[in-house]
């Protein structure tokens, strides 16, 4: 039977997932996401035998997809191998920073249940905002403060558990938004020394395609860096149980982040190449 919209990869499947490159059928879309993740992981050496890997999970689609991809990667790449010479293993820890405004305790319990369902250790910490500090900030500054606190907490937890790798679910879309935000807030091109052995790792304005940074005892990896946020939302929808944690939509209308996101989405129309071009231009500025 001829498909209404033929998948541009296999030619025979019924396409459901739109992209500027071409529409994919479900198996080809799944393969695209898995292969993009796998290439990033192997190219940057994010997952190696004996690694102690912390996966930062907020409950949003990208981080949920990240955890799912890590588990599928382990199943396929290592557990699936029969030869003793390929009995590799890496230890995985699920990390979460509870932010009261983002679903809070409910998200923590869902993530704890998810981790336990996969026999994974889980660690979380609650980040309380100092009221006097936040009342003095506008929306953009509050979001920036929260982001920095979450980053610090995740790094500390990973180091406390002797992890050698910290994986975060930064997508191309989010990286572009943060690049625009940082430029708008005048943060320029400085790399900051924040904690022991770890420097600024969100989005640096030096160089393109920052997938992984190696800092002393820990490697911070962003294996979703070449995927769009919409791809992660669509991927999470196809995988059982991944949408459980998504309980909130962030109202960023009065923030620089919201403006940046709307600008990129309207300009890029979902084109990853456009978003990468924005990153590339700003990296060179």
């Amino acid at each position, binding site marked *: 039977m001829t498909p209404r919209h033929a998948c541009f990869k296999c030619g025979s499947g019924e396409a459901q997932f739109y992209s500027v490159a071409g529409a994919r059928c479900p198996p080809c879309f799944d393969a695209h996401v898995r292969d993009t993740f796998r290439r990033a992981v192997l190219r940057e050496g994010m997952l190696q035998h004996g690694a102690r890997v912390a996966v930062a999970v907020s409950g949003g*689609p990208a981080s949920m997809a990240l955890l799912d991809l890590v588990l599928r990667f382990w199943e396929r790449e290592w557990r699936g191998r029969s030869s003793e010479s390929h009995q590799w293993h890496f230890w995985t820890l699920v990390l979460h920073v509870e932010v009261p405004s983002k679903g809070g305790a409910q998200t923590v319990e869902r993530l704890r249940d998810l981790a336990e369902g996969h026999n994974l250790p889980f660690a979380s910490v609650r980040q309380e905002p100092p009221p006097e500090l936040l009342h003095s900030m506008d929306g953009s500054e509050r979001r920036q403060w929260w982001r920095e606190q979450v980053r610090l907490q995740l790094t500390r937890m990973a180091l406390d558990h002797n992890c050698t790798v910290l994986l975060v679910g930064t997508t191309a879309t989010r990286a572009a938004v943060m690049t625009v935000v940082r430029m708008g807030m005048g943060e320029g091109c400085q790399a900051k020394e924040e904690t022991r052995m770890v420097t600024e790792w969100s989005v640096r304005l030096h160089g393109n395609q920052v997938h992984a940074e190696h800092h002393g005892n820990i490697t911070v990896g962003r294996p979703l860096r070449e995927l769009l946020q919409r791809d992660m939302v669509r991927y999470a929808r196809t995988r059982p149980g991944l949408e459980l944690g*998504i309980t909130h939509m962030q109202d960023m209308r009065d923030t620089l982040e919201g403006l940046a996101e*709307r600008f990129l989405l309207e300009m890029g129309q979902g084109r990853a190449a456009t978003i990468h071009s924005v990153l590339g231009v700003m990296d060179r500025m």
Partner: protein
Amino acid sequence: MVQVKLEFGGGLDAIVADRTKRLQVDAPVRTLGELITWVRRNCIREKHDMFAVSEATVRPGVLVLVNEVDWELEGTTRYELQPGDHVAFISTLHGG
């Protein structure tokens, strides 16, 4: 009038009347663009611009699926609704 099933995901249910994720409605519309206008007026209870900034099209960052197919493949707002269609609106406007 066409009967369709609506789904609100990615946190959009928080701005829908009764905070419901799923609805079955009889809407006096023909196309998907008209449905978006109708939903904005009749189903969204607050922060309407989080769903659609203007009439007939959703806010950038809100995915629209028609029977699990991205609406770009179905002609976006020009898609003519069929009885029983499942239309999902999913926000991508949240963190990772």
